[in-house]
């Protein structure tokens, strides 16, 4: 796929619009999905995604093939997305990246207690959460949405995330920790699972 | 100059200077609004119709600093003076039924924004970059 991309880039560079269009079509949905995770709004995500490809087109001559084409377009989309929500103001008390003792809380606050044993239960829970996860994501501040989206959709490693976001690897890990923790909390509200009670044995008599 | 020539000259001037005659003038309420960040929270009650738009931003204090009711002819630019002495150019570019297209221009920022709204909406346009936690916005509304 990557070599294929480079061939298309070479043709697009020399003015072959069909080759450029092929590149757009190949990555449009994934770029849109990343943008959607960051900017939250479907129409803004559409604009960000389109704009990312326009920028790519403008700078085809600069692309040296040192990174993958897909990395390049995702990088542009990330920055445009972050730019677009730069003014998003969510007043947070805990905006620091580092993980502190207080952040650990009760591990039972996670989406599961200790009681979710069987696979069918997990599968059911997953299906239910699939419908809620985008809404849960939207409640997170931009920096947490972004790092989760890049980790999960683009599949970036800690090192790649550090480079993309301009932060240290340690910060990547702790920011992801906070992001996942917030996500779990948001999902917990949706799924209405009580924090301390992991047991789901249906026994109401207690 | 003879009378007939004066009349002709006057007519010629009138025809050249007149805007497109068919369009009606639009009453527009323009306000200059100040947003402050490093101040105690306060929302000027005169701005209640802008609350939905202004509350998207994180300024803690909102204050109306100027209000002007203008009658605008399509194509003719009105200038609104800002607290710093700068001017923002506002022009009604088009009117169709219930919708009006405004153009907001700021020479110092090399900006011209063309925005179309209907009679129940307002434009809120930042007109100064944030400095010292303070930024100015201009709002425009047709048929207030």
């Amino acid at each position: 796929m990557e070599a294929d991309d480079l061939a298309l880039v070479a043709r697009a560079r020399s003015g072959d619009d069909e080759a450029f269009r092929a590149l757009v079509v190949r990555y449009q949905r994934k770029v849109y999905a990343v943008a959607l995770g960051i900017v939250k709004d479907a129409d803004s995500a559409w604009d960000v995604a389109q704009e990312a490809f326009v920028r790519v087109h403008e700078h085809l001559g600069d692309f040296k093939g040192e990174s993958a084409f897909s990395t390049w377009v995702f990088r542009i989309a990330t920055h445009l997305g972050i730019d677009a929500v730069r003014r998003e103001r969510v007043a947070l008390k805990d905006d620091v990246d580092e993980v502190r003792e207080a952040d650990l809380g009760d591990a039972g606050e996670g989406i599961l207690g200790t009681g979710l044993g069987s696979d069918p239960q997990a599968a059911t829970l997953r299906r239910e959460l699939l419908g809620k996860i985008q809404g849960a994501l939207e409640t997170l501040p931009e920096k947490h949405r972004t790092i989760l989206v890049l980790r999960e959709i683009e599949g970036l490693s800690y090192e790649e995330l550090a480079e993309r976001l301009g932060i240290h690897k340690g910060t990547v890990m702790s920011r992801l920790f906070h992001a996942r923790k917030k996500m779990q909390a948001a999902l917990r509200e949706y799924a209405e699972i009580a924090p301390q009670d992991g047991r789901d044995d249906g026994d109401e008599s207690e | 100059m003879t009378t007939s020539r004066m009349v002709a000259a006057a007519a010629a001037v009138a025809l050249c200077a007149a805007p497109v005659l068919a369009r009606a003038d639009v009453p527009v309420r323009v306000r200059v609004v100040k947003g402050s960040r490093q101040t105690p929270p306060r929302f000027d009650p005169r701005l209640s119709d802008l609350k939905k738009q202004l509350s998207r931003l994180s300024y803690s204090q909102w204050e109306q600093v100027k209000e002007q009711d203008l009658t605008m002819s399509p194509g003719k630019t009105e200038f609104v003076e800002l607290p710093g002495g700068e001017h923002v150019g506002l022009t009604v570019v088009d009117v169709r039924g219930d919708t009006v297209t405004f153009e907001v221009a700021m020479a110092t920022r090399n900006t011209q924004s063309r925005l179309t709204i209907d009679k129940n909406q307002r434009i809120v346009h930042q007109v100064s970059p944030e400095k010292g936690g303070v930024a100015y916005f201009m709002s425009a509304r047709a048929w207030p």
Partner: protein
Amino acid sequence: MTDCVRYAPMIDARAGELSPEERAGLEAHLAGCAGCRARAAAQRVVAGLLSEALLAQANRRDFGPFVDGVMARIERRRAPRGVLARLRAAVVHHPRITFGAALAPVLAALAILVYVRTTHDEVARVLELNSEGVDMVVQTSDGPLVLMGAEDDPEGT
């Protein structure tokens, strides 16, 4: 419990992302910490869900017009047309022309237009995302909110 502060963020790591020491430390910690095991279990439940959900959204949307939209934007950038482009050309070529007082500040230097159309029925479209001066347009049902970039913003990416 300070071990959790160190190891809980490592739970998310994939193969090769931790050093052998970190990996060994994490394994040892998990063996003895029910809390972190619970965290790991919770993460497994939601692993991949975000990607699945957002990509499903992308798949639900009609992308037919997307690439045409991209090409249209590229075209628009190539050839600025219309009154303003001609006016700009006029100012550049005839600097001595003094327009009426009504126009002078507006013509100081023309920039890329931001067109936003918003009505109650139509979905708003921002045609140019980063024109000089205007940084962002936020759509609300009450009307557009147009924001400027900060004074010393570096250009784009």
